[in-house]
């Protein structure tokens, strides 16, 4: 499998480490009323789609960047690769 890194170009998947669902970017606010329920969902509940899936990959043997990879779980086709930092900032994160 080849992951087309937005900065470095096509790289072998062996250079990367897989973390999991990209929803991990959206960490709940611990001060919310229902923070307990939110953190339970954040920590344990995952969708298991047969098809397009957004997931976090770490380029450990490369530039050490975190990526949000959109992959089809049925065909392994990768349709989009973004720098996770840019995704987080676009969702309002300051760092």
């Amino acid at each position: 499998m080849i992951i087309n890194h937005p900065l470095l170009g096509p790289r072998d998947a062996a250079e990367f480490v897989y973390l999991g669902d990209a929803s991990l970017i959206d960490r709940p606010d611990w001060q919310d009323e229902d923070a307990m329920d939110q953190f339970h969902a954040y920590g344990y509940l995952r969708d298991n789609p047969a098809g397009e899936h957004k997931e976090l990959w770490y380029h450990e043997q490369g530039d050490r960047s975190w990526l949000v990879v959109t992959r089809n779980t049925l065909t392994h086709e990768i349709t989009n690769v973004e720098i996770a930092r840019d995704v987080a900032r676009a969702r309002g994160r300051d760092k």
Partner: protein
Amino acid sequence: MSRLSRPTLLIQKGSVFVAEYTLIAEPPLAGYDETFGDMRLVAPADFALVSIALPLGREDKALKAIKTGYGVDLPEVGESILSKDGKVRLLRMAQDQAFVMFTHSKPDAAQVVSKKIKDSAYVTDQTDVWTALHLSGPSSRRALERICPIDLDTEAFAEGHVARTVMEHLGVVILRDAADSFVLLSASSSAGSFLHAVETSIHNVT
């Protein structure tokens, strides 16, 4: 890794005086220089490597200081550039990280870089951590293409390009410093295995 040590002065610890040792690291592949057919494999002497991390929120200031200190802009990720005086190579490894590669015999490379960029970025001495090999000669690309997953065609990986990847399960930074010439960096703790991997790949084409 062998180390030279010598007591330099006595310092007081509690009520006793003890010798303070200055440890000087010796590169694990020091002195290696072999020729294989039309290729030459050398462990560069007095090789110094320092990493620069751009501070969050102060990136522009750091980039400006690098430009002032070295006379060139820090290149894009995956590229490297020689300083204006041609003595130092700046390698952009990641969005917020660069390596400074130069020849320096004293163990104070980090301070040298820090001073050059006026403390505008986080600096770490990587000299001890990495070991370097320099492979040159007309067949060097053929030797490397057997272990390097990066496309080494000059169209895809031109002079000055740099990439961090894996060769024979070892993390390696590869830099093309001339048409038929490559610098390879790998962890000094596995320097022997790294040299063996490169030598084996060279033997496969000679």
